[in-house]
């Protein structure tokens, strides 16, 4: 059972890879929502129906074409305890919805965790491909390929006029959600972020903080995704997102360069102060951790801090969340205990 492997490695294998613009773009993700034609959607399906869906979708794991892409493993939610599923949520491999609300839910994971296929979430099937850096087109190509393999074995609910039919009307049509996670500390520091995010939302894209809803972002991380799924083709949707993100990257780079030339002392103070606090603090709550880690990461990306790698930062951003900390301690911890363990873990990783 490699569930342990998925849970023990804080950083998914795919995250260790390199992607374009990885000083600003953390990851690129494509999610496709699909349903089977003969069954009610998971919310209304009977226990027997959702069992059948689980079985039918799971069978595709043995498909030869799928095996060409990677080895896959299917893990039913019923085989995980609440802490283990929480860890998968924190790694973005499953949704909170699948972890908490699903009946006969399961996830199919590829070896490097770049592909995860959720069964019996809000829709029968959710195909997700995650890539490091700015690789939204690559993620779409892979998701599209996997979608074809599943479609060959299953009967999708599809309508000529409405497209892929989904449980929620906000996903109908292409069923695609393309999203990019951006680290934008310089735009936040120079107070340009709100202007840019308002502009982004006016061109049909949505902006969220790191863990879903609410735009108040932790650690200067922003997720930008398409809102419209109907009336545009997948390539139009992706191209639209791509060109907007490209511009935001340019703005962030300009802001970073400007700060570096005009207020270098301020910047040096800020990143080193945070580096110092992370190296020595004994109590660290999750909000402060997110902010300090963001500062240090900016320092690394600008070459102001050289003895920590950017990967360590990526890893800490995931590892210092409640589920991971408790998995690491192998017991339930109170928030105060977590703050102490979080500080300890950061000290250890950042000074080694």
């Amino acid at each position, binding site marked *: 059972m490699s569930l342990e492997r998925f849970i023990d490695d804080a950083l998914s294998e795919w995250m260790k890879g390199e992607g374009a613009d990885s000083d600003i773009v953390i990851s690129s993700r494509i999610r496709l929502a699909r*349903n089977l*034609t003969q*069954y*009610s*959607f998971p*919310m*209304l399906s009977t226990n027997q129906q959702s069992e059948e869906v689980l079985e039918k979708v799971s069978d595709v794991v043995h498909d030869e074409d799928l095996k060409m892409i990677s080895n896959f493993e299917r893990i039913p939610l019923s085989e995980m305890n609440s802490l283990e599923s929480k860890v998968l949520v924190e790694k973005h491999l499953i949704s*909170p919805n699948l972890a*908490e*609300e699903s*009946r006969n839910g399961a996830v199919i994971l590829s070896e490097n965790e770049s592909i995860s296929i959720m069964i019996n979430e*809000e829709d029968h099937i959710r195909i997700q491909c995650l890539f490091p850096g700015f690789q939204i087109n690559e993620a779409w190509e892979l998701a*599209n390929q996997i*979608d*074809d393999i599943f*479609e*060959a074995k299953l*009967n*999708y*609910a*599809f*309508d*000529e*006029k*409405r*497209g*892929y*039919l*989904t*449980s*929620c*009307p*906000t996903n*109908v*049509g*292409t069923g*695609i959600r393309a999203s990019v996670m951006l680290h934008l500390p310089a735009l936040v520091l120079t107070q340009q972020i709100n202007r840019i995010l308002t502009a982004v939302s006016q061109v*049909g894209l949505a902006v969220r903080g790191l*863990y*879903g*809803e*609410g735009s108040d972002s932790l650690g200067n991380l922003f997720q930008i995704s398409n809102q*419209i*799924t*109907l*009336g*545009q*083709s*997948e390539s139009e*949707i992706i191209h639209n997102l791509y060109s907007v993100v490209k511009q935001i990257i340019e703005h962030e780079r300009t802001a970073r360069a400007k700060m570096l030339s005009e207020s270098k002392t301020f910047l040096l103070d800020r990143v080193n102060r945070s580096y110092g606090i992370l190296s020595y603090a004994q109590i660290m*709550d*999750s909000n402060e951790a997110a902010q300090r880690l963001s500062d240090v990461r900016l320092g690394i990306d600008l070459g102001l801090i050289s003895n920590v790698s950017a990967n360590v930062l990526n890893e800490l951003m995931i590892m210092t969340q*409640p589920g991971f900390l408790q998995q690491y301690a192998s017991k339930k911890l*109170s*928030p*105060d205990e977590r703050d102490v363990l979080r500080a300890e873990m950061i000290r250890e990783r950042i000074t080694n």
Partner: protein
Amino acid sequence: MICQECGNKPAALHFTKIVNGEKTEFHLCESCAREKGDSIPGAPNGFSIHNLLSGILEFEPSMGQNVKQQKNVIRCENCGLTYSQFRKIGRFGCSSCYNHFSDQLNPLLKRVHGTSVHVGKIPKKSGGKIKYKRQIKDLKKELQSKIDHEEFEEAAKLRDEIRNLEQKISEA
């Protein structure tokens, strides 16, 4: 009451969740509630798309009271979901709901997406014919432009391709 997560600070958020008849109660202080985040609807970060959507659905300005009454008894024959239930939860029960609520859907989809017709990917197996139809449409456009530019050799090729596809549709 003390927060059940940390057992330390006073609980500020009280929340009862009933899923499949199973009742779970949460009493959390502000910082634990924030950590739990999205999992609790109504918590600061838990405002979901479904809340928002049912808000949109409730708001149907052009509908008179009479029409509204009628609409509420529209029911999906396959899964039994009524249109008024759909309006409350913002989610369909099955793929047949799209047919049974078809009349109501155009304005809703237009409000959410700005349009109501799919132009994206078509599945290979279940959408064979649709795919050919779309290909023919694209080819015809191309054909017209070739004719406009007097590239007749190219145009003849496209014409044959279109015939080929039309043949395939009638055979399927």
